[in-house]
């Protein structure tokens, strides 16, 4: 049963992409098909998640067929507790993205294949690529799917990006492509070297039987880390990200932040950790870069003047926690990394959707021009405040557990790692949490709050409100629409559920990690 489900999960979005392409001339229908496809894929992934038994390697639980005989590359797919949460998050985010696209569909119907339908096709192709990468158990296969997910993204940013600044969006798209393709090429070279050392591309076998040591193994690990560090992104290789995320269309930003970054973090867990020995200096260096990224991104956010750029930078910080978790080489660290990845997908996806809704209404994401949204669009602003709270790691919401557990893992890191270094890293990462709170509060203050009332006060006196409040609503601007609620609701709900019941995710991840990476503490 599982093999059929695994292959089917890749086939479903591909088939629906084809269908959508065929129907592209009938825009509404085409986009509806794409949305239906994403829902089918989501349902399928839920089925897969229910069916799978949590561990790789047992017969019948994976797909394994020789694909390129000469290269010993296998069509090897499988799912376990590490990848299942990411797969579910991916299909959910794509479903919400395509549903939100459906709302825009009837708007521009001219002759020829519609633009929105083409965008939907590309999104489905990306979805297939991302799912393939999450399911791949063969290093080269992972690389291939990685590329499949990247290339269409270039089109998405280049053709559907910021309508107001064509030059900037082209530059952003190209920069995105150059960085990530270079990164993945480096990663591929790393995989080839691993193949030379371990004798196989099969990551499950590598994880169970390969003990990396020596200069070549180190070089391989460095190359893989370098490639993934571009995608994740790890400081200082993040500079492609703010442009790409802020110039992409709303669904593009959502997919980029919520899903594509996870290719990098998932790569760290699945393909980097098994080929790396915690005894190398490389590991603390990666952890340190992650922590630098946390603080650096938070500082950058404090000085941003554009909403989408701010959210984009915040991703760099959140990904820092994920990589820090991985770089502790503990089961707890992997748990934290997966949890933080999923939480970031939900929360930052939501934030970009909200930024998109704001841009729809006001035509800008310039923070100097967005004021008093609490008064103008109270519900939208309320959801935004919720998302901001979730993103700054409020306990009881999903953003909290991953990051706090990453800090815990850093304090209680693997025995082979330098204890004091990691304790300091944990401390600095915690300061990053405070800075993260600071910039989100600053954002709420400048964008949501504010008002016409500036009461004269005595030096030593407080004022409590007596003045007229800002009238609710604003002519011509609609508060949250029904279709937007459909997009936001699942993300909001899951953010709450994972915040209240983190065990839902932590437990399967721990089991899978213990069986995949034998020997972790």
């Amino acid at each position, binding site marked *: 049963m599982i093999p059929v489900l695994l292959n089917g999960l890749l086939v479903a979005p591909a088939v629906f992409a084809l269908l959508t392409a065929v129907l592209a001339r009938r825009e509404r229908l085409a986009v509806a098909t794409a949305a239906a496809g994403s829902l089918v894929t989501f349902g399928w992934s839920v089925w897969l998640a229910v069916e799978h038994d949590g561990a790789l390697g047992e017969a019948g639980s994976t797909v394994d067929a020789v694909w390129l005989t000469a290269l010993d590359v296998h069509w090897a797919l499988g799912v376990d507790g590490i990848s299942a949460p990411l797969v579910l998050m991916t299909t959910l985010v794509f479903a919400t993205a395509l549903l939100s696209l459906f709302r825009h569909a009837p708007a521009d119907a001219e002759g020829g294949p519609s633009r929105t339908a083409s965008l939907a096709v590309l999104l489905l192709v990306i979805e297939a690529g991302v799912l393939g990468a999450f399911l791949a158990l063969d290093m080269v296969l992972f690389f291939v799917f990685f590329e499949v997910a990247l290339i269409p993204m270039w089109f998405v940013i280049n053709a559907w990006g910021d309508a107001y600044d064509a030059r900037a969006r082209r530059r952003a798209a190209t920069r995105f492509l150059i960085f990530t393709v270079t990164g993945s090429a480096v990663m591929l070279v790393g995989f080839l070297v691993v193949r030379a050392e371990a004798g196989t591309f099969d990551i499950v076998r590598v994880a169970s039987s390969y003990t990396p040591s020596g200069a070549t193994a180190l070089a391989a690990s460095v190359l893989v880390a370098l490639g993934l560090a571009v995608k994740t992104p790890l400081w200082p290789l993040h500079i492609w990200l703010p442009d790409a995320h802020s110039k992409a269309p709303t669904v593009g930003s959502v997919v980029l932040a919520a899903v594509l970054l996870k290719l990098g973090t998932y790569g760290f867990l699945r393909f980097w950790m098994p080929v790396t020995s915690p005894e190398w200096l490389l590991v603390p260096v990666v952890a340190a870069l992650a922590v630098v990224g946390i603080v650096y991104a938070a500082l*950058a956010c404090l000085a941003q003047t554009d909403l989408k750029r701010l959210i984009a930078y915040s991703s760099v910080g959140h990904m820092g926690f994920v990589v820090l978790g991985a770089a502790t080489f503990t089961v707890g660290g992997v748990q934290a990394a997966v949890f933080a990845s999923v939480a970031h997908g939900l929360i930052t996806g939501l934030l970009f959707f909200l930024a998109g809704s704001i841009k729809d209404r006001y035509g800008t994401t310039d923070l100097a021009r967005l004021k008093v949204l609490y008064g103008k669009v109270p519900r939208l602003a309320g959801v935004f405040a919720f998302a901001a709270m979730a993103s700054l790691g409020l306990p009881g919401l999903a953003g909290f557990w991953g990051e706090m557990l990453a800090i815990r893992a850093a304090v209680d890191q693997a025995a082979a790692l330098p204890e004091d270094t990691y304790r300091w890293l944990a401390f600095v990462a915690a300061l990053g949490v405070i800075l993260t709170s600071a910039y989100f509060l600053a954002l709420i203050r400048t964008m949501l709050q504010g008002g016409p009332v500036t009461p004269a006060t005595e030096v030593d006196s407080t004022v409590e*409100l007596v003045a007229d409040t800002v009238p609710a609503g604003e002519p011509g601007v609609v508060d949250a629409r029904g279709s937007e609620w459909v997009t936001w609701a699942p993300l909001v709900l899951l953010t709450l559920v994972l915040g209240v019941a983190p065990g839902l995710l932590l437990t399967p991840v721990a089991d899978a990690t213990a069986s995949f990476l034998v020997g972790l503490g």
Partner: protein
Amino acid sequence: MSWVVLLLVALPFASAALSLFVGHRGEVAERGIAVGASAIGLGLAFVVAFPHLGDATPLGHVFARTSAAGPAIELSVYVDQLTAAMLLLAHTVAFLVQVYSLGYMAGDPRYPSYAALISIFTGAMTLVVVADDLWVLLVGWELMGMCSYFLISHHWELREARAGAVKAFLMTRTADLGLLFAIIVLGVRFDTYRISTIMGEIADGGFGRDELWLPALLVTAAVIGKSAQFPLHTWLPDAMPGPTPISALIHAATMVAAGVFLVARTFPLYLSAPAALTTLALVASLTMIISATYALFTNDLKRVLAWSTVSQLAYMFGALAVGAYAAGVLHLLAHGAFKALLFLAAGSVVHAVGTTSMSAMGGLREKLPDTFVTMTVGFGALAGVVPLVGFFTKDAVIGSVWDAARHGHLVWPWVAWVLFASTVLTAVLTVAYSLRAWLMVFLTAAPPLAAEPAVSEAAEPHEAPLSMKVPLYLLTVPTLLGGLVVVYPQAVFGDGEYHLVHPGLAVVMTLLVVATALAVAWQWRRSGGRDPWHPFVLPHPAVDRVYAVGVVRPVRWLARTVRAGDRDVIDRYADGAGAATRGLGWVLRQAQTGNVQTYLMVVVVGACAIAVAAGVAS
């Protein structure tokens, strides 16, 4: 019973969700949900609390656990005497605040979110007091910070409200890191996060003096932030632009009270680490005097009360720091009652007058008779007048510090002496500022009407509606009778030796109170029945300046540097890429033949190259 506890935690959150979703549907839904849920909550709190007061065995139950790496994180509850008392306090105050808000917030378009946040606040505090898992406790602990942030900025049109809210959130959250690291350290050390287990192990002994200094000091850091003690004492007074009922909730029963609760909950940890106790004692000594001084001079009624909260919290910490558990906890409960009373009464004054400035008040005794009576009781309790509850608990605190100074062994005697001197001095200051505020609000001649149209158009100050008066009178009951518990503490804490009543000291303190009161009254007469002393604005607390210069400014500078740095890097990269592209473009033009076969060829060769590389490598 354990399910009732879980229900008690869940109920406020459910009520909050309901308020948010159907609260806009009309008056009945709006008000009914909030008040109804808090009434049920109060009922459940009684059901849970009463069986666990006195000589009862604590209730512990684990609902769910994650089988994660490291110690399990558990959804577990633990109800002992401390929890029971705190539940009663929190839910009583929350219920009264919800009832009071019916009148106070009438007509406020943001009432649904306001009511929802109060509910979440109550739920979070409940979670803190019943939690038996450190992480669960942290969840409630930080949720309270979030609620107070949103409630302080309820009137987000006001600059002060926005600034105060951000300050409150950032200061407390920074301090919360202490709790986070304490949890991590304790988890590593004890291999469990269950509070009752950890505290049991510590209480059983086997730990050297100060062996656990690190987690104890980390907890202290969190407590200092949450309870607004020096040097993080400045956020609480700046939180005053929030609606007044919220101040009652924050100051009496949740948020700042949670700091004291946490010390009480982790008391065995503190007893094993005198370093933390000493820190706490010194911080408390300093805080109580500083804040009482501010309370003495400020001209803002709510700020007087806010500073007095800071000062009274320091009293509780002082008691706990010398090992006087019962005295500290009882003062917390007593303070909860009379401070809620004072804030709600202050709200009723503000409601009538339209400002919090005391120089705009005066002569309200006839106009607000109910407020006058109840607030007098509240101020009396704060000042420690016989036989109100504040008198007994304050006497218990000072008495235990006195005992510790003479023959205590937990902290060095000099620390206890410093603390003792502070408590006595603060008691005097407390009488002075309470009496001054009371005189200025109620007895001083009414100020002449200002010429501003806003004020002259306003109606004559009038007594608040019934929904606001009833909570005031209800709160006078524990304020009047609470002293009985100090006389018979076994009712709360169960059997044991409690040295809470110190008759000799009580007489001395009462004489001090009377002397101070006479001095203030005399001073007031001399000033012609206005402010007893010359209006004098104390400088803003210097630590804020330190934070501004030492933290905020460098961070802003760094942020700008980072942004500029990133932009420059990107630009340089873009320039470089441009040049490289031109070069590469030339090469590609040579290769570009427009022939599909050529492209295909390149792809194939590339694939072969990879294959060869792989082959060679293997």
